């Protein structure tokens, strides 16, 4: 349908021109020049923005960028657009092997497909935002962009394919690990020159957020070998990238885990098959808050450290571990401060999507200088907001907690939900993971805490080890002062599907407004973005009897968007 619609469009329509645009614009200025002038300087009020009119349907591209007022538009253009494009070139030029970028671009389909739409990813995430919220959220996006470039450039610099099969020193001192193994496990080796790279984080995880089309090819690839379509599509995609030989061959060994689910365990078999490198499995216990399992879990981490030493020759260093663990603790303390501000005030300046992506990204990747720098900037913005009591999301009608695993192809649904309905996503389930500081006074304490830290991994801590974990929702709702729940109904997540009825019963008993929307993690073909929006809008209209803040966002077609 969408393709048909595209073919019927004239070139000028494709470029975003609509008949009467100029006339309407002139009329708008002529009718009320004072208001037009005010709009130019401060931007339009929320209810007059008509953000939906900016889309070229069904591409999801903008006819023109939103005018946010003089100051914010200037900020967005210089500090987001120009700055990000600058870093996308500059960071590559200053990396270990700049030329390998072009080899990577040519060799791996996920690079080119993801690199071009990066700024559109920013636009989608920060649509309609103003002032400190725009600035703080943009910093989170910048941090992720920088780290993404760092990671894939590291992969390319070490890739055997780009070095004529030569096992370089860089290659020898690298460990690949499943993206659900936290980078913190490798802290003891970082000062010794070891580089740890989460294998799937860029080729799969980041790519689905930036360009949702990239991953579809990989899902199809693994299904063409006979895998049914019902297992978790994240694992399917990860396996598909492997089957297509689209992971850079960047390290002599690999560390895997059972996080987050049965399909992740099964994916390890595929990873072993295509990587064909020494593999260490570092599974986490399922009944993870049982005191009896802690010692055993710690032994597995020590086993992993021994494996890394043997495979890379980089020795274990307690000092290195201590240093990075303490830096990570600092970051966690700041995260808790942010939660505190989000829970107790209306001055939290980070939107739902920036908060969720940044939190999962940095905690999986492990401590990094970038996080420290940008946390400093965000702290400054947040302190200003709190001191001046700035209402960062002034159109908030409901404070929302989002539960279960989010749709990766539409992580910016919360930006839309705020703009359209005033639903402000305060916190989501995956952001609450890894909430554990690591004591560094003794080796034993550190190991004990690191083990706990890894047991509290995203998509897992709440989903396994008993229903009491998944039902922590009620406590968090209270803690974050939320009055509404958005339940992600990940259609292929067996753990969440298996407890759906109990949630329904509880919502009814507790009188909680919960909006369920289905999705298929990275696969937009199963449930489209428009269907997700419909689920939310229908609930808001039929159950809550509310009027949209911006009706132009109620119904639009963005099925062909990145």
């Amino acid at each position, binding site marked *: 349908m969408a393709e048909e619609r595209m073919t019927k469009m004239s070139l000028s329509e494709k470029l975003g021109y609509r008949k009467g645009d100029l006339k309407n614009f002139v009329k708008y200025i002529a009718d009320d020049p004072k208001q037009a002038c005010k709009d130019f300087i401060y931007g339009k009020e929320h209810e007059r923005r008509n953000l939906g009119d900016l889309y070229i349907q069904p591409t999801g591209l903008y006819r023109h960028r939103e005018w946010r007022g003089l100051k914010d538009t200037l900020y967005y253009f210089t500090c987001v657009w120009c700055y990000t494009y600058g870093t996308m070139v500059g960071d590559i030029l200053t990396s270990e092997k700049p030329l390998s970028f072009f080899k990577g671009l040519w060799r791996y389909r996920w690079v080119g497909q993801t690199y071009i739409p990066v700024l559109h990813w920013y636009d989608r995430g920060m649509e309609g935002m103003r002032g400190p919220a725009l600035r703080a959220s943009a910093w989170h996006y910048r941090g992720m962009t920088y780290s993404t470039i760092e990671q894939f450039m590291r992969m390319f610099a070490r890739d055997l394919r780009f070095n004529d099969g030569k096992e370089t020193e860089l290659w020898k001192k690298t460990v690949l690990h499943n993206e659900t193994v936290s980078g913190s496990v490798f802290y003891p080796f970082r000062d010794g020159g070891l580089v740890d790279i989460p294998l799937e984080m860029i080729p799969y995880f980041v790519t689905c957020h930036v360009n949702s089309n990239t991953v579809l090819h990989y899902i199809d690839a693994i299904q063409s*070998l*006979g*895998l*049914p379509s*019902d*297992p*978790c599509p994240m*694992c399917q995609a990860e*396996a598909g990238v492997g089957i297509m030989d689209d992971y850079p061959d960047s390290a002599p060994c690999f560390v*895997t885990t*059972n996080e987050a*689910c*049965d*399909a992740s*365990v*099964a*994916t*390890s*078999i*595929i990873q*072993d*098959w295509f990587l064909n490198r*020494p*593999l*260490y*499995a570092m*599974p986490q*216990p*399922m*009944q*993870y808050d*049982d005191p*009896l*399992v802690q010692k*055993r879990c710690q*032994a*597995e981490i020590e*086993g992993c450290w021994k494996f890394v030493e043997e495979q890379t020759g980089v020795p274990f260093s307690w000092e290195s571990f201590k240093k990075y663990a303490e830096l990570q603790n600092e970051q966690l303390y700041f995260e808790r401060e942010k939660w505190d501000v989000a829970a107790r005030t209306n001055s939290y300046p980070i939107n739902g999507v920036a908060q969720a992506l940044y939190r999962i990204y940095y905690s999986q990747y492990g401590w990094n200088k970038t996080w420290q720098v940008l946390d400093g900037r965000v702290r400054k913005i947040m302190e200003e907001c709190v001191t001046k009591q700035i209402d960062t999301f002034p159109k908030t009608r409901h404070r929302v907690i989002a539960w279960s695993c989010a749709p990766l192809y539409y992580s910016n649904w919360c930006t839309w939900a705020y703009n359209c309905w005033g639903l402000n996503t305060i916190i989501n389930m995956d952001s609450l993971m890894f909430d554990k500081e690591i004591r560094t006074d003794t080796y034993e304490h550190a190991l004990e805490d690191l083990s706990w830290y890894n047991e509290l991994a995203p998509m897992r801590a709440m989903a*396994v*080890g*008993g*229903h009491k974990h998944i039902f922590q929702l009620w406590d968090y709702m209270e803690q974050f002062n939320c009055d509404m729940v958005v339940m992600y109904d990940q*259609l*292929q997540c*067996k*753990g969440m*599907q*298996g*407890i*759906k*009825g*109990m949630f*329904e019963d509880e919502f009814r008993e507790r009188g909680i407004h919960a909006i369920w929307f289905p999705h298929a993690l990275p696969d937009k073909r199963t449930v489209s973005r428009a269907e997700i929006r419909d689920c939310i809008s229908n609930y808001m209209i039929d159950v809550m009897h509310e009027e949209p803040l911006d009706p132009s966002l109620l119904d639009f077609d963005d099925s062909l968007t990145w």
Partner: protein
Amino acid sequence: MIEFEDLLLEAYNDLVRQAKDEGKYALGYTCYFMPEVLLNLPGCFSVRLRAPRSASPDMATYYMSGRTCMYGRALMERALEGGFNFLDAQLATETCTVTCRFQEHMQMMPGLINNPNFFCEFTDVPFKKNDNSILHYKDQLQAHVLDVLHEKLGVDTSDEAIRKAIEEQNEINRVIREIGEFRKLDNPTITGFEFALCQLVAIACPHYLILPKLKETLEDLKTRKPDPKPGYRIKVVVAGSENDDPYFIQLIEECGARVVADRYCYGSIPGREEIVIKEGETALEAVARHYLTTSQCTRFMEQHIMRQRKETLAGIVKEYKADGIIIEQMKFCEYWSYERMIDTFVLRRDYGIPVCSIEKEYTNGATGQLRTRFQAFIESVELKKLQSEQAERGVG
């Protein structure tokens, strides 16, 4: 065999009723990782949960949605119908997501099991088979099986009691093994369906009541003469996820194959090996080591174990002189969806074994489609056999 068939028609069968009437505790479980032997300590008996004659699990689908494995949902439906009210306890494992969720419902839904003293206790099962994992598993069995049974039901869980339970378990294992040996004959004197009945009654009924009947069956089989002309066209191994339905095996055999080995959950490979207590080991240590090392579950993640699983499967085909393998996967079983895909590829490519790869439901609903698949597979294997025989003879 007819009696066995009757016993398998419901979970709360005559023998379970008899044991309950005799004052014994019925302990439910779903997975091989919950050692059957520990649930047969004095005063109690094990029942591996099944939901025979299940239809559409409508109530369970409300609780667990229609996108989860039907085995878990069928058990939930049976529980909601009151079919498991005879249970005194459920010894649960978080070994695959959906059965875990079902057992969590048993734990948290008041009145799901209408027995005021009912309890459900979870055991954590490791993903590796190394020494650390065996210790992990042993600690878990001690705390979440033995200590709980002792505290809540007053069961004797001493080393001596476990040794006695091991002896009894070994006895039933030996009988099932011997019955299974007949499947290795060139012309087997037992059908796969008959063997499945024996294996299933052994896990679904109290051991002390079913053992004499199994022994009787074994004696009968010893005198059974093979058919002069085999009533099958090829021999196959069935491997895969959960299958507690003997009529699924019967369906395969009706199509012209003889099922000679059962390497699936609820099957006998593994499961019927002798539990050996090594010198210096406690009985519990032996149990933990035995169940962890014999398991061929697809959740094991060590590199050498993942690779060895394929070899083991190919070895079973050879040992049982099978012509091919049917790999079945319960729809929505994530472990086996991957394992089936890889096995289908690797067993053909690396071991030259013909593979029929199917996805099925818990209830034998899609009989017509499955029958067509099996018939086509049997025909293709037969044709290959014929071609290779001709090639050997230099014909054609």
